[in-house]
């Protein structure tokens, strides 16, 4: 027993080092963002002598991060709302209703999982250009929804399968139409899954760069992550401002992670165990 205990403690040493290696790059960035340019050049590692917010406000105001932030917020919110709505509707029908062709439709949705954006980038950009949806909010929202819908439908279907049929049957006998069952029973009962899937989708959309880059070419519609990539050229010799821009993009994710870590991990785990 003592031997086992000792070896566990020995394992804790490399694991702690790894934890430090995981967290240090971010702490370093926070520290740099608080420094003056001069301080950074003199000593990169020393703790900042004061909490300075000027770099953050410079990045926010003069580089256009405020605009990019708003763009991201608009696109991500609309995408997640649409994903949850369409995903839960389809998930309800595919898991609880018997109708001709349901398994073929389910397979059709799943097939979307195996088509990554990279593979259809060229034709999709062309479709978006032909329909004048390129460089518009609805265009990027549609591309996000199409990207993450197969996964959302899959998770909602497997979640709704766990709800006993009797619940639906009882609601039908009480005079609810199919739509009524969806609205009054399935949506409220689906809350935990909707929360998990919603957060995951929000992260995926917020963090995306390739789809945003291809679908939103103009600077006016740039999303936050694309904005961060453009920082590098502009602030290559002003590291603290650069670090501040990176931090602005990371803070929403950090906050979400601190409060909703459980739901994120649950969503990832659900996606794997139901596969």
């Amino acid at each position, binding site marked *: 027993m003592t031997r086992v205990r000792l070896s566990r403690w020995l394992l804790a040493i490399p694991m702690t080092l790894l934890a430090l290696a995981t967290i240090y790059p971010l702490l370093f960035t926070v520290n740099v963002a608080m420094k003056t340019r001069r301080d950074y050049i003199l000593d990169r590692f020393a703790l900042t002598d004061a909490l300075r917010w000027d770099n953050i406000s410079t990045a926010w105001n003069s580089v256009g991060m405020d605009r990019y932030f708003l763009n991201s917020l608009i696109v991500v919110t609309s995408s997640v709302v649409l994903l949850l709505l369409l995903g839960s509707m389809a998930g309800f029908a595919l898991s609880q209703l018997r109708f001709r062709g349901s398994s073929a439709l389910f397979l059709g949705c799943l097939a979307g999982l195996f088509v990554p954006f990279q593979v259809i980038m060229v034709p999709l950009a062309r479709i978006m250009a032909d329909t004048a949806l390129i460089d518009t909010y609805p265009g990027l929202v549609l591309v996000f929804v*199409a990207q993450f819908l197969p996964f959302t439908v899959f998770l909602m279907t497997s979640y709704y399968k766990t709800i006993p049929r009797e619940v639906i049957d009882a609601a039908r006998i009480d005079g609810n139409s199919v739509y009524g069952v969806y609205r009054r029973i399935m949506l409220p*009962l689906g809350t935990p899954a909707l929360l998990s899937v919603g957060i995951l989708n929000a992260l995926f959309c917020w963090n995306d760069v390739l789809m945003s880059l291809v679908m939103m070419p103009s600077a006016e519609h740039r999303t936050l992550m694309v904005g961060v990539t453009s920082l590098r050229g502009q602030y290559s010799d002003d590291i603290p401002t650069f670090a501040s821009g990176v931090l602005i993009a990371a803070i929403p994710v950090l906050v979400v992670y601190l409060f909703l870590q459980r739901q994120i991990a649950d969503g990832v785990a659900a996606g794997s165990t139901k596969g």
Partner: protein
Amino acid sequence: MPIGNVQPSVRPVSSGRTDADPVAAEATGRHRGTRPRRSRGGARAERFAPYVLVAPAILIIVVLRLYPLLLGVNFSFTGDGERNGTVVGIDNYLELLDDSLFRTALGNVGLLVLLLPVAVAIPGLLATFIYLRVPGHRFYRSVYFFPAVLSPVIVGAIFNLLLAFDGPVNAVLGAVGIGPVDWLGDPDVAMFVVVGVHIWATFGMALVVFLAGFATLDSALLDAARVDGASLLQVIRHVIIPGLSRTIAFVAVTTMVGMLTSMFGLLYVMTSGGPEGSTYLPEYYIWIQQGQMNRPALASAASTVLFVIMLVVGLLQVKLLRRAGGED
């Protein structure tokens, strides 16, 4: 459940209709034989309801995912520029083979395949330790998972700072007498650095998947092995690996797909495919040809190659791991 919202079950007979599904009514054994006449429109609406619910999702997936796939394959056999729209056979594919940048991209895919066992083993081992209740396992779990939620763009930007030639990592190495390494500027080093950063950023995701797999493992087996005095290595080899073969297969496939389709952000921010094109991957090549070189048909050919690679990799791994799982 908002029971209060549900309409009363007893309806006035005079209304002559109910929305109750005949199947549901029969299943519960009530209402049998006294099924009221229903209005035709309502019944039809009910019959079509499942299709109405599925339609938007299936429409979006078909129009914006499956149809473009066919369109792209078709497109890859046509020409660019002056030959726009004309059928050119396999010219684009021949040009790809001839392009040293694309060959580098394929070579790097090979490197990713070779590094895959490492990318699977690291989170697997760490999950094992966490599962065996290393002191502080909850803390490790939440710290390790954290980079997985950060955008590759943010991760890449942070590592750009750390790995700059005159940056902090080289400063630390210099202090212990190891000469500065040009992490992102040396063609022999850069790809390993980018893959390393990718693994750093994503191992938490695989870790969570492994932990979910461990939750399904029969702990009695583990206890039995412990009582028999099995060492950690023996436990891993004879209990954990066979017990988790499904999870391992899943992690291997998703990690490989992740390496093939979610490194764009890192490449874009950290190396832009350089130095000397040494960090090209197919997805980056597709983007360059489509967006920068104005060669959409050539990009489509590269897309098709990437799709085939992903299919082959996926099928191969599932097959290999199924066989490995079957032997034990």
